[in-house]
Every structure is written in structure tokens, then in C-alpha cells.
């Protein structure tokens, strides 16, 4: 089957990628970039689980806890209390990276005010590859299904004769 992951990636031409990444600008405005990187500082709230972000597309999220914590993040809707183990604790001063598929949500909880360096970076090529894979996968499944339907015997007469039974020796 020629549709491998590599060929799927090659199929995504640069022009197509650019048109996907950069939306059409309004007349008189410079072209906007859609898949931009966001960098900011997030200050945690005391108690409860807060929604940190919803991934509108595939995202690489990098978090660095700049204070002593404890701060936990996770994809479940309720991860508090912070030390409950429902999320993962962010280490102090070390960057932690997550890749979030489109539609996933990231939650955060803390028991005091903390400072978290927050960087999100869109991964448009991963979005494209995923789309291609899912399209190709459906094609493959459809092709296999038709092969199976075409090769299915209609009656017992279409089947090949059974082999003779083995002889029993004395």
C-alpha cells in the first residue's frame, strides 16, 4: 500500500500548508498568522480546578513553574485538591511539555498563588498528518471491505473440493 505516513506527509504541500496556516486578511490589513505561538505568565488561583486552555488545534504546551507550588495540571475536569494525584505536579523551575490533540482541554489547580510560564505552539503539520491518516485509514478500510465482499463465495459449489481424509496406518 503506497499511502504510508511519509507519503502522507509529503502530500501536504507548502502552499497548502501556508494557506491553511494563514487566514485571509481583511482588505487593507496585513496578513494574519493563524498558528501563532503564545507566551505569557499564568497566576494560579487558590483552590478549585481551572480550565487552562482548550486546544483548537494540535498544540505543544510548555509549562514552567517559577514558584514553589504545588501546582498540578491534567486533562480531567476535576484535579483538585492539588496533592490528590488526579493531575501531575509541575516541578519547580523545569520546563514540562505536553502535546494536546485538537479538542483536548488542560486543567490546572493550586492551593496558593503561583507563577507559571506558559508557552503554546501550534503544530499544523501534525494536524495535517492526522487528517491525512484518518482519510487514508478510511480509504484502506473501505478497500479492504470491498475486497472481502468481492471474494465472498456465493454457494457451496463455488468452494474448492475438500482434501481427502488422512489414512490411518496399522
Amino acid at each position, binding site marked *: 500500500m503506497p499511502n504510508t505516513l511519509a507519503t502522507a506527509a509529503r502530500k501536504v504541500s507548502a502552499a497548502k500548508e501556508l494557506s491553511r496556516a494563514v487566514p485571509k486578511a481583511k482588505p487593507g490589513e496585513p496578513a494574519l498568522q493563524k498558528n501563532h505561538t503564545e507566551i505569557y*505568565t499564568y*497566576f494560579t488561583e*487558590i*483552590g*478549585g480546578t481551572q480550565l487552562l486552555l482548550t486546544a483548537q488545534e494540535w498544540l505543544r504546551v510548555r509549562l514552567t513553574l*517559577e*514558584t*514553589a*507550588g*504545588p501546582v498540578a495540571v491534567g486533562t480531567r475536569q476535576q484535579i*483538585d*485538591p*492539588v*496533592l490528590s494525584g488526579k493531575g501531575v505536579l509541575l516541578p*519547580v*523551575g523545569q520546563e514540562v511539555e505536553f502535546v494536546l490533540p485538537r479538542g483536548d482541554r488542560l486543567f490546572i489547580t493550586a*492551593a*496558593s*498563588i*503561583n*507563577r507559571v510560564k506558559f508557552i503554546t505552539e501550534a503544530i499544523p503539520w501534525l494536524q495535517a498528518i492526522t487528517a491525512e491518516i484518518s482519510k487514508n485509514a478510511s480509504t484502506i478500510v473501505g478497500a479492504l471491505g470491498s475486497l472481502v465482499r468481492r471474494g465472498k463465495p456465493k454457494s457451496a459449489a463455488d468452494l474448492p473440493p475438500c482434501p481427502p481424509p488422512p489414512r490411518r496406518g496399522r
Partner: protein
Amino acid sequence: MHQTQASDEVLRGKDFWRLRQQLESAGDIFEIDESVIALYVGPDSDAADLKVTYFDPAQPNGLQSAVISPGTPFNGRLDALLDQAIPATGQKARILVQPADIIGVTYLRPVLPQPAVIVRIPTFIDLIGVFGELIQVPTQRSDRQFRTPVLTVGAGGTGFPNSTDIVFPLYNRRCWSVEVSRSPSAVSMDVDISAVRLTPGANNQPVSLGSMSFAGISVEQTQSLSFRACETGLDSADVQRPGGLWDLLLVNLQTTAGGGPTPASVAITASDREG
């Protein structure tokens, strides 16, 4: 109970917060509402030993404590969990800090009459909490210095009219010196230096460390005495000098009865280093 502003420092983007405040009583407790990865005694602290109490669910009452002192920090994450309550008290699980030393901000000599003038040098707490990476912790406090303006000794007042006390916070300093200068005066003056180790609920008797005498002559005079914690025995004037660590240093200036007032100034320096 005093609130600290540690969360403000988080919002300002700092890697540490500092609590430097004058102690008002021996029972001062400070609430910290931010977690830290290390706590240590700051350079300007008079109080040497600080007791840190924090939430520990493994303990029967939910509380655990540690004492930090200069050169002995607490290295490890201490959590302030403001969304949880301490089972024993029902209060929010903050970090609490209080002086482990007995703070004698109202110390009075147990003998009467009291000196007419008592100059109390304020006692400060200096505590540093680290949010980010701990680089280096100082092992000693910076030297504590105090210089009086020109005091008029023997100017009268209630109590012992020709006597003035200076109460200086020592709290485990290992070396200290007292320098007394006196302008030309016909009045003679005696200086007695003593120290106190405080015990709970008592104004303990001071122990004399040494003395200086200023004769009534018309030239300026300066004398000094210095002490070390490890020094014991007799000094050159055959005065017994008890070594050790003390809480308060008392410098008493006293003119001869009926001699009248005389100007004098005092400089005190205390250090954590004996060398």
C-alpha cells in the same frame, strides 16, 4: 498574628520574599500564605532561632515544626495549602513562623529602682523564603551596629535618676564590643556591661561581664571592651568574664550621685563571628 505579603512578591515576579519586621512581643507569629522551597534567617535578623510550623497530615494534630537559625536553613518544600484546613485548629494550612528565642522587648532589671532612662534597641526578625532555585544561603548574620547620639547621663527622671540603661538584642551573637566616649566633664561616670539569658515569664538577673570608669577630667575619653562567647575566666583587670551565648546586652551608664549630668555616646557592635 501578622500577615506577610509573600503572594505580592509572586505577582511581582520575584524568586524570594523577605519578612523584616520589628518584633513587638515574645508571642509574635507570622503567617505565610505561599509555599517555599527553602527558608532561612536573613542577614539583618536579631532573633537567631526561628520556629517554623507547617501542615503535615502524617502527624496526629496535623502540624510539624522545625527550628532554623543562621547557617541552618530549612531546605525542602514547605506547602501553604490554603484550600485545606488543619484538623486540630480548623485554620487554613499556612506556614507559621515565630521566634524560638525569648524576645525581651520589655525587659526590666529585677532590682529597684529602675534606671531613669532606658534605651531599648528594637529587635527585628529577618526571614527569607525562596520560591525558585536556592543559590546560596548565608551562614552568618551581618554585624549589628548601634550608635547612640550624645546621651545626657544623669539628667534625672523617674527611677534611679543618675542611671541610664541601653538594652541591646544579642540573641546568640558570638562576639560583641562596647565603646563609650565621653566629652570633657568634671563628673565621673561608671559603665557596667552585663548580659541576660532570658527564661519564660521572668526578667532574669543580669550577669556582669565587665566595667569601665571615667574620671572627671577635662579631656575627651574613650574606652572599649569586647567579649567572645568562648572566652571565660579573668580578664586583665581580674574581672570574671562568663562566656557563652546571651539574649540581651545591658550597658549601664551611671554618674556619681549628686554629680550632675554628663554627655556620653555609646557604640555597640555584635557579630556572629568570633575571629
